[in-house]
């Protein structure tokens, strides 16, 4: 099945120091366990919101989850499977989201 959504997991210094590497690996496992073959997990260089990391952006759907912890992953995977948006992790201000989404849309990064 072609990939329709990608979970971009920030791997810059601050997010990494908060466990983003392990988080990406766990997310990958949970997505596989759920059988979501159309969802991919990729590292991303930075979203410019390090203080609120680890940050995960679901693209092209454009959902940004901040302060993500291991215990949040089941809810994120449920969302990827068609469940509700995880509102408690949606804490980034809208103007920053807009700028970063525009950057993602350009395909440069």
């Amino acid at each position, binding site marked *: 099945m072609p990939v329709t959504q990608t979970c971009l997991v920030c791997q*810059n*210094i*601050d997010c990494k120091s908060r466990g983003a590497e392990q988080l990406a690996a766990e997310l990958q496992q949970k997505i596989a366990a759920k059988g979501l073959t159309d969802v991919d997990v990729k590292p991303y*260089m*930075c*979203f*410019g*919101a*390090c*203080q*609120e990391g680890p940050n995960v952006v679901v693209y092209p759907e454009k959902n940004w989850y901040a302060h993500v912890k291991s215990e949040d992953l089941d809810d994120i995977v449920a969302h990827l499977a068609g469940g509700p948006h995880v509102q408690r992790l949606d804490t980034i201000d809208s*103007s*920053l989201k807009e*700028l970063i989404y*525009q*950057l993602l*849309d*350009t395909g*440069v*990064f």
Partner: protein
Amino acid sequence: MIKISTFDDWIDYFHQWQKDIGYDAALLNDYKFETKLGELHSPEIEFGDFKGQPKWQRVSQIPNQSIRDALMNLIVYQGDTEFASVEQQKNLLDTAPTEYDRKALTRVNSEEMRHGWQMCYLLVNYFGDSGKLEARKLLERRAFRGDRLLGSFNAPVNNWLDFFTYTEFVDRDGKYQLTMLSHSSFAPLAESVTAMLKEEHFHMFTGHTGLTRVLRAKKIPVPIVQKYFNKWLSTAYDLFGTDHSSSAHWAYTWGIKGRYDEHTATLPADKDKLNDLAREHYMNESQQLIDQLNQLVPDGETKLKAPHLRFNRSIGEHVGKTYSVTGELLSAADYQKHLYDALPNAEDEKILADIIKDKDWVAQIQLN
């Protein structure tokens, strides 16, 4: 001479400052200048002689005048950098390589202004007449006159390579300073900088992605990029203060400024090496970023590197010494030639200006 009696007076003066430096406030659209407060790491003083006591909410709760003076000084220095950076960068708005970059620069400028606003809010509302005087002076010094308080903030930002390198490395120093202040025993300061930190990260992001785009485009010679690294990193080292600083020692003892890793540190602080340790953390982080950028430098070309700690220092034990960018001691004559070769010179700026005339010097971002 204008007198600041209330924060509204200061706001009027702030708008005058925008006009005086030639910043077109219309560029900021509907950006709302306001004070923002974040959460405290702890309601109790986290370290130092007053550890465990409730954080001070008012200046009158601070036990003595020396602490009050040191605290106000920290706020003044932080505020000075914020306004200075806008003065340094404002001329770049007309030469933004893309609309995205212009928007990003505008965001960076507006947030730096807000951070200065936040520091002045503290000065005016908490520190009496002396605070009001300092808040006024923050709007009266000028980067282009060279009378901002710290060297980095008087250096020229002439072009977008300057800007990307500045936001990568000088704004990163800002992250360190704000993180250390976020543990402050003075609650209004700690709450203020916690909110500022959230915004600071976009500035560093702008620098890192900008440098990434420069290296991807492969138009600006890597040796010229290296010279900008030498310029901004060497001055950024100074921003951490002198080695074996007594003011850092007392700031820690009084609980007004913590360590960068205060929240995770398990060992007692070495109070005689606080600045040195923060700078070491910073240098390690910068090296990781340079390593990332070097992945884009083609094989066979000299990789980018951080200048040696001893190079081109304006404060501390290496000030006035003739160390090379790799840390070797040179003769005075050789050193002058070395400085010309190691830092951006007029010839480099001319080459850069020629390259930047076309838009392809940086990977393009076209907004939809």
